[in-house]
């Protein structure tokens, strides 16, 4: 433990160095750049595993140092190794590694391959740095770096106007949340006097400091603002679907598995600061987001957008889990979700890649036969996400959340919202799978789709295996994950699965999921045989509602109509103010100055200049006369020096005599 903590900083540093080196490489050194990035992330992964191993046996270790001093206070930084960070680091490093490898195949044709890996490595470095940070300040820096990497990668194809716009949107919207985060952070510093999380009892998360905080609910809510922005919670969720303009591996890595989870991780990390009031807000926001996003997902037709809304919805689940059930519940869903959502995105990428960059699910169909590996793994991911019982990780983690909500003392509404979300999730995922893989090919592209190379399918297979297996670490019968995070030990007890608290919830959610799958399958299984141009069955049934949902409940339009328009109006007003009022003032002053200047000029010309002319003429004449001494003849200079030497010598000798 003590030894690994000394080298913990290597985990983010390795990819950071790779990113730096990659930035300096010329564009044609593709292999070297990718090799550097993958090698670096492998190192990080191995180190993370070592760190994880170390945390299995002991609790928390920190390593702090002083960054700089101002006045009497000093800013401290450091890194921490605890189960929360370790599990996150392993997850991030592993998913990153797999996605890096996948990108080798996905981005093989891209001419900016080198830059891509540079950005990926930068992202990984920032994310890993965030995970091990032991200071809110360092956390915030990495947080912003992550945002920067996200911006760069969303806008990776910046030639596309939509990608550039999406990148800007993502950057600006998350900045809104970050402003809250920053204010919260400063407030926290003002109150607690430190940004260190853990500092031998002095850190801001430790009872000594956290217990005595005044106004901590406000601080917690402000920090939660950051999480809302980063994790795409209502009302700042609008950037995440647009972020799908980036390359698919980026969507998988950043906008599904890791970065968006940073918000959840932030709440998990500062959990001791979260007052019950704040947790209520968290739960409600999460619940609303979960249902809201899931319902939007039902009506989307872009394969990646569906997954994006699914991600938003799942992040809402995580928030609910955190708010109602505590760190372990939220983090467990985060972990399982990371694997199966990465799997789904990579599978979607494989589909897109196979269908020659086609993203509309209505134009696919029948890919089951043409992309067998992708189909198999995608199906695993879909079932994990939908929460198909027993064998898939999503079931266990979602069940834990629902269970926590069921026993929540605040309100039962989030519980029902969660159940609704589970139903919707199963519905839209089945819809998607039916549209994409089952039925007949709808277009020529779909007919000629091809399976992806092994460099892409192998990560899919690994992720599929993980998506199944990870769930077993957190079942009610063997809650190892929860115990690990809480620092206890877990015993295997099958009977817990069957007790009266757990079983009804489980059965209820299973029933809802089954209902969603069956209903959706019934609708779309048949519909997938029809031509693509035809309207969606739901649209036929409820055109108004469907249109509303398809337009994402008009949130973007709402923002345009309110926030953006207000801002524009205010800007116009400011412009007018500037132009008419201030400008008029300035013009008046200007005229005055001009008049004065004219007067001055006349005085200057007639009185001052004449005098100076005479003076300068005299100086110039004198200078010309003197400058004749410097005639450029070195020998003359030497002669003068010689004569001067003689003079000095004579003076000296006479002086002595």
């Amino acid at each position, binding site marked *: 433990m003590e030894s690994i903590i000394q080298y913990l900083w290597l985990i983010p540093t390795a990819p950071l160095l790779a990113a730096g080196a990659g930035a300096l490489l010329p564009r044609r050194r593709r292999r070297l750049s990718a090799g550097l990035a993958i090698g670096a992330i492998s190192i990080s992964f191995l180190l993370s595993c070592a760190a994880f191993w170390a945390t299995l046996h002991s609790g928390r270790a920190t390593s702090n140092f002083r960054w700089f001093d101002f006045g009497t206070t000093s800013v401290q930084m450091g890194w921490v190794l605890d189960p929360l960070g370790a599990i996150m680091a392993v997850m991030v490093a592993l998913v990153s590694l797999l996605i890096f490898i996948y990108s080798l195949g996905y981005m093989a044709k891209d001419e900016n391959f080198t830059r891509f890996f540079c950005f990926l490595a930068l992202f990984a470095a920032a994310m890993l740095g965030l995970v091990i940070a032991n200071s809110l300040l360092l956390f915030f820096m990495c947080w912003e770096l992550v945002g920067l990497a996200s911006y760069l990668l969303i806008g990776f194809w910046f030639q596309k106007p939509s990608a550039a716009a999406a990148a800007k949107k993502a950057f600006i919207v998350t900045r809104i949340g970050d402003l809250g985060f920053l204010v919260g952070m400063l407030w926290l510093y003002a109150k607690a006097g430190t940004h260190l999380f853990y500092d031998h009892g002095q850190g801001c998360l430790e009872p000594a400091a956290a217990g005595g905080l005044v106004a901590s609910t406000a601080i917690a809510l402000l920090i939660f603002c950051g999480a809302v922005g980063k994790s795409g919670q209502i009302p700042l969720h609008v950037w995440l679907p647009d972020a799908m303009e980036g390359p698919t591996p980026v969507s998988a890595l950043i906008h599904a598995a890791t970065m968006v989870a940073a918000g959840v991780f932030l709440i998990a990390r500062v959990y001791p600061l979260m007052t019950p009031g704040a947790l209520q807000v968290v739960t409600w926001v999460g619940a609303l987001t979960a249902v809201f996003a899931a319902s939007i997902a039902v009506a989307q037709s872009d394969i990646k957008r569906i997954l994006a809304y699914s991600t938003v919805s799942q992040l809402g689940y995580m928030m609910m889990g955190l708010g109602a059930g505590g760190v372990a519940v939220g983090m467990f869903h985060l972990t399982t979700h990371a694997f199966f959502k990465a799997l789904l995105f990579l599978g979607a990428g494989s589909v897109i890649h196979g269908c020659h960059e086609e993203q509309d699910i209505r134009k696919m169909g029948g890919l089951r036969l043409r992309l067998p590996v992708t189909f198999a793994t995608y199906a695993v991911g879909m079932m994990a996400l939908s929460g198909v019982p027993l064998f898939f990780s999503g079931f266990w983690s979602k069940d834990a959340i629902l269970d926590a909500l069921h026993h929540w003392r605040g309100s039962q509404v989030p519980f029902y919202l969660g159940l609704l979300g589970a139903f919707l999730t199963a519905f839209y995922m089945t819809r998607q799978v039916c549209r994409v893989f089952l039925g007949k090919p709808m277009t020529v592209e779909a007919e000629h789709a091809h399976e992806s190379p092994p460099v892409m399918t192998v990560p899919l297979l690994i992720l599929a295996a993980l998506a199944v297996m990870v769930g077993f670490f957190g079942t009610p019968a063997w809650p190892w994950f929860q115990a690990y995070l809480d620092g206890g030990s877990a015993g295997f007890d099958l009977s817990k699965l069957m007790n009266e608290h757990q079983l009804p919830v489980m059965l209820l959610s299973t029933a809802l999921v089954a209902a969603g799958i069956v209903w959706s399958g019934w609708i779309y299984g048949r519909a997938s045989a029809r031509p693509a141009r035809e309207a969606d069955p739901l649209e036929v049934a409820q055109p108004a509602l469907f249109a509303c949902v398809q337009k994402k409940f008009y949130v973007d339009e709402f923002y345009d109509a309110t926030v953006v328009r207000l801002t524009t109006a205010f800007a116009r007003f400011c412009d007018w103010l500037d132009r008419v009022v201030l400008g008029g003032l300035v013009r008046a002053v200007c005229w005055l100055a001009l008049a004065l200047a004219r007067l001055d000029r006349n005085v200057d010309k007639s009185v001052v200049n004449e005098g100076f002319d005479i003076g300068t003429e005299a100086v110039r004449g004198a200078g010309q006369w003197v400058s004749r001494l410097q005639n450029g003849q070195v*020998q003359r200079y030497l*002669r003068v020096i*010689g*004569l001067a*030497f*003689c003079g000095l*010598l*004579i003076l000296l*000798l006479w002086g002595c*005599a």
Partner: protein
Amino acid sequence: MLNEIAFLLCAALTLAGAVAAMMLRNLVHCALCAAGAFAGLAAIYLQLDAEFVGFAQLLIYVGAIAILIVFTVLLTRGAEIQPGAASSASSWWKGVPVGALVLACLIWSIMASPSLVRLPSPNVHAPVKQIGEQLMNQFVMPLETIGLLLTAALLGAVVIGLREPRTSEPNS
């Protein structure tokens, strides 16, 4: 007595070389006479028990600087174009009196100072080992500085002496 004669011989060689170097028409002769003067000075150094300095003088002045001068004379075609007799004649009266004046002042000051009539202290010698040790201890900073200076001078001389690229010539 022997020492006196040797000194007079060396001094005569040095002065003759110097005068010839400053007065001869042909620049190559001047350069070679200057080399002779340098060699005579080296002999005087040897006579003053400064072996190391004497050899260094020979090596650097006769072996290097004289050759450099000769090269420059050839490169500037100084050996072919004779400086106009008129210009040199007119310049004699500008240069020589100043030189003579300085010389007179120096000799007057030498003669005027009473403490300078002194005989050498006996049995002084400067072993190379001691010179080396001093160079590496007391004078190590000057030594390093000289090394730096010579490197800079070398580079500078090369850069100045390089033929400029044709494009940079403004006219012609």
